[in-house]
C-alpha cells in the first residue's frame, strides 16, 4: 500500500510541477490558444456563414486535432535536459505518467472549452440551426473526443521523446493514424448531436470514446516504465 501512496504522491508532485512550468512558460499555453482561435477565425472567413453540419463538424475536429497536437505533442520533452535527467533517476515512472496524464487531461479540458467557445462565437451554429439538437451531447462529445485523443497522444509523445533527433515530427507521423478511430467516433457523435438524432443512436459513441481513452491510458501506464529508463 505504501508504494501506491508513493506513486500517487509522485503523480501529484509531477502534476504540480507541470502546472508551474505551464505558468512560467506562459508563452506555450498562449501559443496553443492563439493557434486554436486563429484557426477558427480562418474557418469563419472561409465559411461565409453558410456552413453545413458536416462542414462544421469537419472544421471543429481539424482545429481540435491540431491544437491537441500542439499542446500535447511536446509533453515529454519540454523540461530542460538537466531537469529531465534528474526526473529520470528520481521519479517513479508510473507516478510520472499519471502526473503527466492528469496534466494533459486538464489542458485538453481547457482547450475544448476554448475551441468550442470560439466556434460558437465566430461561426455560430450550422446553417438552418438556431441551436444544436443536443447541446449537452455536443459538449460531452467534444470533451470525450478530446480526452481520448489526448491519452493516445501522451503515449505517442512518450515514445517519440526517446528519439534523439526529430522526435516531435515522428510524434505527428505515429500519432495521426492512431487518432483515426477516435476521430471517426467523435465526428459521428458531433454530426449526430447537431442533427438531433435520437439518444439511443448516439449514446454508444461517448461510451466507446471513454473506453478507448481509458484503455489507451491504462496501456500507456503499463508500458511506460519500460521506455522511461531504457
Amino acid at each position, binding site marked *: 500500500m505504501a508504494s501506491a501512496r508513493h506513486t500517487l504522491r509522485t503523480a501529484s508532485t509531477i502534476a504540480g510541477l507541470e502546472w508551474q512550468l505551464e505558468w512560467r512558460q506562459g508563452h506555450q499555453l498562449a501559443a496553443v490558444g492563439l493557434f486554436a482561435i486563429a484557426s477558427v477565425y480562418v474557418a469563419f472567413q472561409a465559411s461565409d456563414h453558410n456552413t453545413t453540419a458536416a462542414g462544421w463538424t469537419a472544421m471543429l475536429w481539424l482545429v481540435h486535432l491540431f491544437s491537441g497536437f500542439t499542446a500535447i505533442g511536446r509533453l515529454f520533452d519540454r523540461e530542460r535536459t538537466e531537469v529531465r535527467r534528474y526526473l529520470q533517476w528520481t521519479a517513479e515512472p508510473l507516478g510520472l505518467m499519471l502526473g503527466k496524464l492528469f496534466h494533459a487531461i486538464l489542458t485538453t479540458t481547457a482547450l475544448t472549452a476554448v475551441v468550442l467557445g470560439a466556434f460558437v462565437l465566430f461561426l455560430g451554429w450550422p446553417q438552418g440551426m438556431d441551436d444544436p439538437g443536443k447541446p449537452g451531447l455536443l459538449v460531452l462529445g467534444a470533451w470525450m473526443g478530446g480526452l481520448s485523443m489526448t491519452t493516445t497522444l501522451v*503515449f505517442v509523445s512518450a*515514445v517519440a521523446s*526517446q*528519439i*534523439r533527433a*526529430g522526435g516531435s515530427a*515522428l510524434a505527428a*507521423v*505515429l500519432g495521426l*493514424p*492512431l487518432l*483515426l*478511430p477516435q476521430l*471517426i467516433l467523435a465526428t459521428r457523435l458531433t454530426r449526430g448531436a447537431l442533427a438531433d438524432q435520437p439518444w439511443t*443512436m448516439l449514446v*454508444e459513441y461517448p461510451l*466507446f470514446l471513454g473506453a*478507448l481513452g481509458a*484503455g489507451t491510458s491504462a*496501456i*500507456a501506464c503499463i*508500458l511506460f516504465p*519500460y*521506455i522511461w529508463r*531504457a
Partner: protein
Amino acid sequence: MKGAWNWTWKAGSILLLGYVILRGFGTPLQPGLVTATPSQLGIGTDTIILAAAGQPFAAADDVPSDFHVVLRAGDQLLKTETVEITPHSVRLAVNTPATLPSRALDAFVFTPAAGTLFLGNACFVEEAAKGDIPKDFRAKAPEERAPKLGFSFPYQPNIIESIRNLLWHVPMWFAMFFIMGLGFVASLAQLRTDNINWDMRAEAAVKTGLVFGLLGLATGSLWARWTWGAWWVSDPQLNGALVTVLLYSGYLILRAAMGDDDRVGRLAAVYNVFAFIMLVVLLMVLPRYTESLHPGKDGNPGFNSYDLDNSLRAVFYPAVIGWGALCYWMYTLRLRMNRHAYHLLSR
C-alpha cells in the same frame, strides 16, 4: 529427419495453395436467380423473364414435367405457366389478378436438378388492390426436392461468383492476425528478457504481417467494388483494417527513425504491444459492437458467419492452413536474414 520435415511443410503449403486455386476457380457455382424483367407488372396477362447465374439449372428448350415456377404474394401463391427454358433463364406467362395480399411478388423456381431457386421482391404490381388471390389464380405448393448438384459453391445474392474471394481475402487476414500475434508474444518476451533475439522475431513478424495486411486490403477492396459498388466504403471493419495497417507501418518508421540506437528493441517492443492491442480492439471488438447496433448496413449479413457449406469448407480450411504456413515460411526467412545480418555486424 528434421530436414525432411522442414521441406515437407513448406512444399505442403504450396501444394495446398495449388489445390485451393484449382478447386477455388474450378468449382461451379450453384444456380441462383439474379433479375426479373420486367420488374413492374400490370393487371392481366404478362410475360416475365427470370435470369439466373451459376451453373445451368436445366437443359435448353425442354420443359420437364416437374419444373414449376410460382410467385408468392404475402403468404399466398400465384400460378404461372413456363413458356421456355434456357440454361440460364426461364420465360413465364403470368395472369395477374386485380387483388393481391401484397404488391411485392417473390419468385420461386422448383427445378428437378437444382432444387428451389428464390428471388425476393422479383416484381411489383402497383395497381393491385389489397385482397386475397382469387381461387382460379392460385397455385399449389410444389414438392421441394433436394438438389443434385455435385460439388459446387453456394449461391449468395450480390456476391455471386465473387464468393471465390473468400478463399483469398479471409485466410490472408487470418495469416496476418496469426503472425502479428506471434510478433506480440515476441515483443512481450523482449520486454521481459531484453534479448535481441526476440526483437528480431518481432520485426520479422511485423514485416511479414504487413505484407499480408496489404494483400488483405487489396483483395477486400476488389470485393467491395464488386458487391457494394465502391472501392472503399466507410464501415467500422474497413476503418479498423486501414488504421491497423497504418499503425504497423508506423512501427517500421519508428525503427527506421531510431537507426542504430541501442534502445530500439525496447522502444519497438513497447510500440508493438500497443499496436497489437489496438489491432484486437479495432478489428475484433469495435466492429462487432457497432455492427450489432446498425444491422444490415452492407447488404450481406449472412456473410458474418461465412455461410460455409460443406463444399466451401473443403476448400476454405485448406486455404487457411496453406496461407498460414506460407506466411510462417516467409516469416522464418525474414528472421534468418535478420539473424545473419546481426551475426555479420557483430563480428
